[in-house]
């Protein structure tokens, strides 16, 4: 959903022809891209909030309050009722950081394209390919593993471990934020120098 909307933010305007009209107004390209990026973030946050409310609300309605049983790599973990809300919140904050990376990637690809479908499909392809590579337990891929941002996106699950691997989660969150900033920087640099000829 995030890729679907953010991938269309710039290229959709280029395809519609409204991009050239926006850029002939006195706003500057940096502001234009920044506004698009903030919109992408707000949209991601909106989707996540909706998802969060549904997930947490429905769980409460269906299963009721109380302790949570989680089956993960460490085995069966029991999370106390008192810890549940903040763990959920922390997981959603981490998920927001992950989605920020996806949105930034999608926006970057959108700045390179003049049609709406390309960036959306390409974002999905990147995520799927990276996820598939991450799931292979082959030493051949080991050198590139730390650079695959999808490797870090699933770490929200570790917030339901006991104890929580805080350092690992913070490191992954940092890597994801760094990815977002790099994608944002590339978008700004490319768009600043881009000739609008569509």
């Amino acid at each position, binding site marked *: 959903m995030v890729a679907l909307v953010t991938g269309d933010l710039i290229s959709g305007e280029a395809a*519609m*022809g*409204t991009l*050239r*009209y*926006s*850029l*002939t*107004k*006195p*706003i*500057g390209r940096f502001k234009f891209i920044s506004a698009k990026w903030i919109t992408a973030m707000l949209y991601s946050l909106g989707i996540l909030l909706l998802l969060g409310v549904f997930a947490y609300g429905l769980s409460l309605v269906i299963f009721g309050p109380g302790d949570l049983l989680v089956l993960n790599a460490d085995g069966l973990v029991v999370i106390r009722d008192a810890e549940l809300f903040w763990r959920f919140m922390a997981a959603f904050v981490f998920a927001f950081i992950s989605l920020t990376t996806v949105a930034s990637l999608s926006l970057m690809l959108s700045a390179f394209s003049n049609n709406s479908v390309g960036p959306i499909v390409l974002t999905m392809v990147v995520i799927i390919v990276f996820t598939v590579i991450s799931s292979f337990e082959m030493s051949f891929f080991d050198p590139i593993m730390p650079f695959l941002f999808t490797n870090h996106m699933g770490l929200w699950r570790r917030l339901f471990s006991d104890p929580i691997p805080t350092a690992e989660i913070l490191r992954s969150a940092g890597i994801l934020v760094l990815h977002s900033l790099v994608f944002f920087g590339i978008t700004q640099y490319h768009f600043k*120098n881009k*000739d*609008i*000829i569509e």
Partner: protein
Amino acid sequence: MKHKACELVHTRNYFVEHFICKHLTKTCVWIATSCNRSMSETILSVSGLEKYYGTFHALKGLDLEVKRGEIFGLLGPNGAGKTTMIRILVGLIKPNKGTVRYFDKIDLKDLNDALPRIGSIIEEPRFYPYLSGKLNLQVSARYYPKGITKQRITDLIELVGLTGRESDRVSTYSQGMRQRLGIAQAMLNDPEIIILDEPTNGLDPKGIIELRQLIIRLKEEFGKTVILSSHILSEVEQMADSMAIINKGVCVSQGNVSELLSKNSVSVSLETDDLAASKVMIEAMGYSVTQDQKAINFNAELDAIPNVVSKLTAADHKIFRLDHRRKLEDYFLKLTAA
């Protein structure tokens, strides 16, 4: 009684003062405008503009100068570089070389300072089709830091003749209506310069006439400088005060439209009582003459026509009709043929 008389005198004085003030202001504005025009202030100058698309050299050192308050026609065949130049003027494309200077002081690197004083339509105007015409204008208005009033939007809708349709979705608009909405959008910030790239493209004859009238109004009523790119020669000939002809990325001619055309030969059509004898006589003056059933036709310098007429009348040839046309087509083709 005396008191009332005083009041009346005061009231009269007030009206007289108000009248004088009002007309003095009008006179001052008129004088200022006239001075401004007679000063022929350069509002845009382009010098040595070059642009490459890969290895293709689209603009090869283009020079132009546009004066305040004129309609400036930019003519050229397809692919001559008109749209590239216009996109550079509004900051959509970056030139490889050369300078663009607005209002005698603002360069391209500070274009954001000039853009609040410029309005443009680049190729066909594009809008959000799912929004109404008015909402599209309101969205555009948000780009201007000083803000655009709702009244201004209403006034512009009226100016371009879209009153009554402003709340309809743009997707239901005809091409002509979109073009007029584009002009309203370009006028939102009350710009000093309006840049129109091929504004009559895709319009029917009625739409072309309406748009032409609107463009002339922008100049005459609102004192706007209009830069108009077109490959339709008659369009430029009818509207523009000055023009530049661009061919293969260079400006091959620039100046006042009538002066440029008067420098060149005109096409003369002459109807006399004895076409054959007149033809022989004009040929003897060194002109190449063709004859059809009703008239003889030849090309001559504008200044030479009285001489031809006087020689014919001196030889007792009766002239029933004489037409001459300054043919922009001929001039254009002469410059762009190579």
